[in-house]
Each structure stands twice: as structure tokens, then as C-alpha cells.
């Protein structure tokens, strides 16, 4: 037997616990991450419903909710601090436990090894550990949500010194904020392990013939994202540890001298509030790309599959992913134009930020060119990918305004920013997740999701997100600062209340419509049409094996790769797709 193969064979576990709970199988771990993300996204959406209730009807009383959250509705209407707590937890849970776990750790864990022809991740035990570490982080984050004194109110960015000074900073800034920091630090450790695994797997475990330039763009995206995660999360981990020390250890990393909060004099000295912002955004900006890059990979893959055409300019796509990843490390200062950072530094960050638009534009052009002269099949996966392209453009172009410090003087910290990042890293990334889910569901569970219900879900989601987030641009243009529990204190904002009402109603409808997806997901597990090995007539390796794949993915056969990932509609070929594992003769 081939030594190379023997090195990666291990026995399938038989007991329930080792098979489904503490599993070392990358496929089970992938599904565990997806389940975690589904729970987290449900919590995150409920929090946003509460926020939108307050924004649409600021002083309305909600007796039923007051019954569930007596502190949050003390005196009748939702308190402003409860609103801020919802805002903080919504952002944190969505960014970390949904947008990082689902596209990277979920789909990546399941499909990266199969797509490169490996039997598992390089370090299965570490893979199991990374999930359970992340799970613990989520539990701690939920504890923060229900902490004594309330959940933290400092936003997902937890700017110091507000987040560093403890309970004196306001409601929720005691135990809640401490648990928040601990959860984030644990999360960083888990993500770091995942990143190491992804990188090693891609570099060491590719099947024979799977050269780097034959990898599907999904694998390229996960690979690049893993590099970002490897270098970004340790920085936040360091920042988190320092913040925790400031909170519980009496240190002063982020607290300057002479602070007087609520008439209480603090004894700290020597800290810098801007240091936290630098550490946070040094992580935070790559994090935005950690959320969106896998979506770009999935979109490229699906557009090609369902246009029955090769991805346009594959090499440029790989180059663009890498360029985006690299440049994303030198743009973090654009979050800090108004922070008091040197204005000269702002000029440099402005140019690098503009530069990151170039590879992003290249990707958009190539997606459109992939559609050109294609033969489009409108599956749910394809619809969500087309939605992704539209949203990516809508969210991307506003970056041109926010990248300029001069324009940012007005737009910074207004709803314009909220619109921008929700469209591009929120819903575009979510559309990437949905596209991936409709596309890979048959491979993961052996049955297709219901296409009809999927289309209903798609239309509600597409129209919904545009109705929610487009109007936020207008709020921002009118100068509406973000993170306001209500706008009624300011005369110049009063005329904007109808927009808030519109957004809230759109949000309630869109969020309710997500029930269709969850129903479809669970219904199809039992009742979906049997999928077969390759229902979409796709080319990559996961479609060459049974659905769901066996424990070691490829059985006794070692996959050998003979073709590039996107050989669709090759002139003269027998069918309109050539699988990567098809014999060399398949290509005339």
C-alpha cells in the first residue's frame, strides 16, 4: 500500500459521543460549526428585532416584553441602556459567531479537505478542540447577555476607556463587559487553531495532481482567509488580555491619568485609549474580509457552475483574493480618521483603502464576465450568488466615500457607515452562506433542499435587505449618528422618523421570512429529494464521491486530479462539464 495513503487513514468511530459530539471528523465538525452559527444567528436576529422595535416606536410600552425582561423595560418603554446592550450583543454575536464561524469554520471545515483531496484536516484532534473552544466562547457570550447588571453597552468595538473602567461606566459595564472580553479572548484562541489547520491541510495534504492553481476558488478563499485569521486573531487576543487586566487587574493599558467618571476620581495613569482602537482595528479590518472572502469564493464557484462556463480570469481571481487579503492589513486606520490619530497617517490609510477597491472591482468585473455568454440555471444557490454580486457592488461603492477622511468628517459614525458595512460584510456575506447552503446541502445530507421554498426565501431576503439597508444611507446623509436609542432629542433628526419606521417594518418581515429557510432545512433532512452524487453537474472533488461522503471521504481510492476546477462547456467534450478527477482523455 502507498505510504502516503496509509498516513491519513484512521478508523471511523462507532460510539455516539465520539461520532457526533467529540468528533474529530472534519465533516461533523463543519456541521457543528454550522449548527452553532444557526443558533447564534437566531439570537442575533431576535436582538435586532428588539432594537428595531425601540427605533420605530421609541416610547411605546411592551407589556409582554416587560414581563420577559423586567430590567430592560423598567418603567414601561425599553430603556436606552437595554437598547445599547442589544446593539452590542447583536454586533458581537453576528460578527464573531455567525460571520466567522459559518463561512470559514463551517463550510471550510467540511469542504476544504474534500476539495483538495484530503481524507481529513491535518490535525483532527486540534480541529475538535477548536470547535469546543469556540462553543465555550459562545456560552460565555450568552452569559454576558444575561449577566447581573445587564449586558455590556460599549458596542462590538468596545472602545476604551468606556469598556475598561468597569461598572462605573454605566449599566452592563461590570460583569457583562468582563464576560464579553473573556468570551472574545477564548474565541480568538479557537479561531487561531482553525486557521493553523486550514493552512497545513492546503499546503501538505493535497491529492496528487491538485496543484495550487487547480484548486477551486472556494479553497483559495478559505486558504487566504486562514492566513488572515492566523495573523489577525492573536492581535485581538493580546488586546483582549490587556483589556481584561485593565478591568480586573488594576492595570492602565487603555486608561489615561486624571479621569473623573460620575464624579469619581480614578487613580489609573499612563494608558492610551487609542492603543485599543489600533489593536482592535488591526484585527477588525482583516476580520471584515474573513467574513466576506469565503462568500466571494462561493460566489465565483457557483456562478461558474450554473452559468456552465469557466470562471472568467481564474488567475486574476486568485491574485485578487491575495491582494485583498494583503491590503486588508494596511487599511485599519480608516476606522480612526476622527479619532485624534495623526491626520498625516489618515492620508496614507486613505490611499491604501482606495487601493483595496481595485482587486474588489476586478472580482466584480470577472463575475459579470463569467455570466457573459453563459447558459444560466436559476437554482437557489445561483440566485443567492447573483444577489451576492448585487449586494457586493451596493456595499462596495460607498467605500469610495468613507475611504476619504475629508468626506468622513461628515459621514463617520453616522448611519451611512451602518448601511455600508451591513450590506457588504453583513448581508452579502449572509447571501454567500445561503448560496453555499443551498449548493452543498445535498452533499452534506444526501437530499436536496426544496427549491420552491428556497426561491420564496430568496425573494423575501433580497427585497427585504434592500428595503432595510438602502434607507440607512439617507439617514446617514442627513447626519443621523449611529447607536442612538432614539432620535427625538435632536430637532434636525425629527423628520427622519418615518424612515426608521419603514426600516423596522421591512426588518420584521425579512426576519420572519427566515423561518422558511429553517423549515426547509429541517424538512429536507427527511423529505428532500435524494440528491445523488452530483446533482448540479459540478466539477470539484466533493461531487465525485457519495452524498453524504463516507468517513474518510474517498474510501480505498486515492483521488488523482487531472483537470482545472472550472472546465465547463469545453468545446468537443462529451458533456458540458469535466470533473477534476475525470481521466485526461475527457478533455479533447
Amino acid at each position, binding site marked *: 500500500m502507498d505510504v502516503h495513503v496509509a498516513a491519513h487513514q484512521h478508523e471511523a468511530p462507532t460510539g455516539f459521543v465520539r461520532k457526533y459530539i467529540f468528533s474529530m471528523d472534519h465533516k461533523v465538525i463543519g456541521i457543528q460549526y454550522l449548527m452553532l452559527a444557526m443558533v447564534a444567528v437566531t439570537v442575533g436576529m431576535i436582538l435586532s428585532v428588539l432594537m428595531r422595535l425601540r427605533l420605530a416606536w421609541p416610547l411605546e410600552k411592551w407589556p409582554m416584553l416587560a414581563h420577559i425582561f423586567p430590567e430592560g423595560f423598567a418603567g414601561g418603554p425599553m*430603556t*436606552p*441602556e437595554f437598547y*445599547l446592550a442589544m446593539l452590542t450583543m447583536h454586533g458581537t454575536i453576528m460578527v464573531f459567531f455567525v460571520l466567522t464561524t459559518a463561512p470559514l469554520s463551517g463550510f471550510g471545515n467540511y469542504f476544504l479537505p474534500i476539495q483538495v483531496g484530503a481524507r481529513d484536516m491535518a490535525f483532527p484532534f486540534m480541529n475538535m478542540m477548536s470547535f469546543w473552544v469556540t462553543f465555550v466562547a459562545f456560552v460565555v457570550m450568552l452569559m454576558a447577555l444575561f449577566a447581573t447588571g445587564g449586558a455590556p453597552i460599549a*458596542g462590538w468595538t468596545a472602545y476604551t476607556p*468606556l469598556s475598561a473602567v468597569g461598572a462605573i*461606566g454605566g449599566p452592563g459595564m461590570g460583569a457583562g463587559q468582563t464576560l464579553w472580553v473573556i468570551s472574545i479572548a477564548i474565541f480568538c484562541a479557537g479561531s487561531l487553531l482553525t486557521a493553523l489547520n486550514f493552512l497545513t491541510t492546503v499546503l501538505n495534504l493535497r491529492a496528487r495532481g491538485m496543484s495550487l492553481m487547480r484548486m477551486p476558488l472556494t479553497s483559495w478563499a478559505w486558504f487566504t482567509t486562514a492566513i488572515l485569521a492566523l495573523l489577525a486573531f492573536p492581535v485581538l487576543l493580546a488586546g483582549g488580555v490587556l483589556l481584561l487586566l485593565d478591568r480586573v487587574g488594576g492595570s492602565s493599558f487603555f486608561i*489615561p491619568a486624571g479621569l*473623573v*467618571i*460620575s464624579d469619581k*476620581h480614578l487613580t489609573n495613569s499612563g*494608558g*492610551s*485609549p487609542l492603543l485599543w482602537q489600533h489593536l482592535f482595528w488591526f484585527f477588525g479590518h482583516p476580520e471584515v474580509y474573513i467574513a466576506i472572502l469565503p462568500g466571494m469564493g462561493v460566489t465565483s464557484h457557483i456562478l461558474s457552475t450554473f452559468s456552465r462556463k469557466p470562471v*472568467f*480570469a*481564474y488567475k*486574476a481571481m486568485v491574485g485578487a483574493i491575495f491582494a485583498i487579503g494583503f491590503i486588508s492589513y494596511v487599511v485599519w486606520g480608516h476606522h480612526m480618521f*476622527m*479619532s*485624534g490619530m495623526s491626520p498625516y497617517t*489618515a*492620508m496614507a490609510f486613505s*490611499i491604501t483603502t482606495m*487601493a483595496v*477597491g481595485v482587486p474588489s*472591482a*476586478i472580482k*466584480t*468585473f470577472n463575475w*459579470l*464576465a463569467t*455570466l*457573459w*455568454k453563459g*447558459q444560466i*440555471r436559476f437554482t437557489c444557490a445561483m440566485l443567492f450568488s*447573483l444577489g451576492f454580486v*448585487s449586494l457586493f*457592488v*451596493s456595499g462596495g*461603492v460607498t467605500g469610495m*466615500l468613507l475611504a*476619504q477622511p475629508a*468626506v468622513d*468628517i*461628515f459621514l*463617520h459614525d453616522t448611519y451611512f457607515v451602518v448601511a455600508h458595512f451591513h450590506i457588504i460584510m453583513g448581508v452579502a456575506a449572509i447571501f454567500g452562506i445561503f448560496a453555499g447552503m443551498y449548493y452543498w446541502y445535498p452533499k452534506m445530507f444526501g437530499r436536496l433542499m426544496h427549491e420552491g421554498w428556497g426561491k420564496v426565501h430568496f425573494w423575501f431576503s*433580497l427585497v427585504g435587505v434592500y428595503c432595510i439597508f*438602502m434607507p440607512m444611507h439617507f439617514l446617514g446623509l442627513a*447626519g443621523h*449618528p449611529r*447607536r*442612538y*436609542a432614539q432620535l427625538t*432629542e435632536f430637532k434636525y433628526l425629527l423628520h427622519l422618523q418615518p424612515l426608521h419606521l419603514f426600516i423596522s417594518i421591512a426588518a420584521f418581515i425579512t426576519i420572519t421570512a427566515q423561518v422558511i429557510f429553517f423549515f426547509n432545512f429541517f424538512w429536507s433532512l427527511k423529505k428532500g429529494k435524494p440528491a445523488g452524487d452530483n446533482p448540479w453537474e459540478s466539477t470539484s472533488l466533493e461531487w465525485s464521491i457519495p452524498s453524504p461522503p463516507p468517513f474518510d471521504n474517498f474510501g480505498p481510492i486515492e483521488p488523482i486530479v487531472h483537470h482545472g476546477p*472550472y472546465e*465547463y*462547456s469545453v468545446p468537443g467534450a462529451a458533456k458540458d462539464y469535466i470533473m477534476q478527477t475525470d481521466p485526461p482523455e475527457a478533455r479533447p
Partner: protein
Amino acid sequence: MALLLGLFFVAVGTVTVGIFLFKVWWLPELISVHGAAIDDQLVMTLIIAGTVFFLAQIALGYFIWKFRGQGRAASYWHENPKLEFTWTFITLVIFVGLGISGNRIWAAYFQAPVPADAVMVELTAQQFAWNFRYPGADGVLGRTNPALIDDANGNYIGLDPKDPAGKDDVTTQNIMAIPVNRPIRVMLRSKDVTHSFFVPQLRVKQDAVPGLGIGVSFTATKIGEFEIACAELCGMQHYKMRGRLLVMTQADFDQWLKTRAAM
């Protein structure tokens, strides 16, 4: 499906651009000298971004409808170096060009020398109020010391009673008066957490960071009352950290200072 989705993307492009063009919701009125350049740059970028947005949505919509799979085989077309080079180059020129032109306006804004006759105002932000201080007749601000801050007794900024220069300082809370058409220099501080001084009509926004002193300059061009908003999350009452900005004639301002000093 193809037609519907194609039309939807065309509609997204058209409706959004329409709302911007007809200025259904728009920037608040402009009342500062430097703000004109900011507005011009904002509008120019908005036009470029809007054009890119519009064309991309239309193209997406059109392609979806045009190539909706009607039995004819897909083309094996997958590269065209000349085309790729062209659109990369055009994008690069537009993006970097915009970046450089934006930086010129930014530089003009923060590098502008503070004129000798600028009105000096010190602003100390706190949860959830704005404390302003004007030097009195001597033109010098008195010494402050955070250790002397005592909100309960009205010493919000820690004014040192032993410093004679501080005797004639004028302090106010949540109300800021400035003369029209005269350069103003505000020195921003914070005594607790980070806040952000935002006057939409002035096109001025600057974080007030504890431990730092950060200056901003502007010249207001219109008499009237405006609002100062906090733009950085600072705690539970962030949404009602409101100040009043009174822009008045020089004579009214002098009178206002005198009245305040006597208070």
C-alpha cells in the same frame, strides 16, 4: 424568474439613484467656509460611486435576462488579457485619483494655520454634557487640574481657583456661542470616556479623547441656532448628549460673553 430578477436589479439601480438625484433626503444645510469643499468632494464621489453602482446593477440585470439559458451552449470564453488590463487600469486611476483629490481637501482642512484673531474655545466633554470655556478679557485660560474636578459643586473641569488667569474665564454647559464669519478654534478634551463633537451643519466632527487635547478650526457663515451631537458611543445617554450652538453677530457675542461672565 430571469426577467423578474433582471428587472429587480435594474429597479434597485434606478430607484436608489433617483432618490439621491431628487434629494428626497439630503445633507443638512451648510454653514461653514471649509464645508463647501467637503460637500463638493462628497457629491463628486457620490456621482462616481452612483454611476459605477448604476451601471453594474444594470449590467447584472441585463446579463441575467440575456443569458437565461435557452438551450444554446455556453461559450468557453474565460480570459481576455487586454480587457482585464483595461478595466484594472481604469479602476486604479479612478480610485487612486479620488483618494488623492480627497486628501488635498483633508490636508487643507487640518493644515490650515489658526489665525491670530481666532476665537479660542475650550471644550471638555463628559458623560453626558459639553463643558465650554472662554478666556475672559485677559485672553488666557486659567489653569485646570483634574484632581480639582467636583461635579457636585459645579467645578466640572477642575478650574484651579488659585490661578488669577482663571478668574475671568467664562464657563458654560451645553451652550456654545460663537461670532459669525470669524475663525473659531476649539480645543477638545474629555474627562471620562471618548465622545465626539459633531455639528452636522458645520461639517465638523472630531473625537474628544481623554488624555489628549485635539484642536479643530472652522468659520461659521450663518447666524442661527444649531445642535451639537455626540457621535461616539459614550454610555447610556449617548443619544441625548445634546448641546446648543448659537451663531451670532460679533456685537451680540461680546454682549453674550459679558452677560455670562457676570453670572
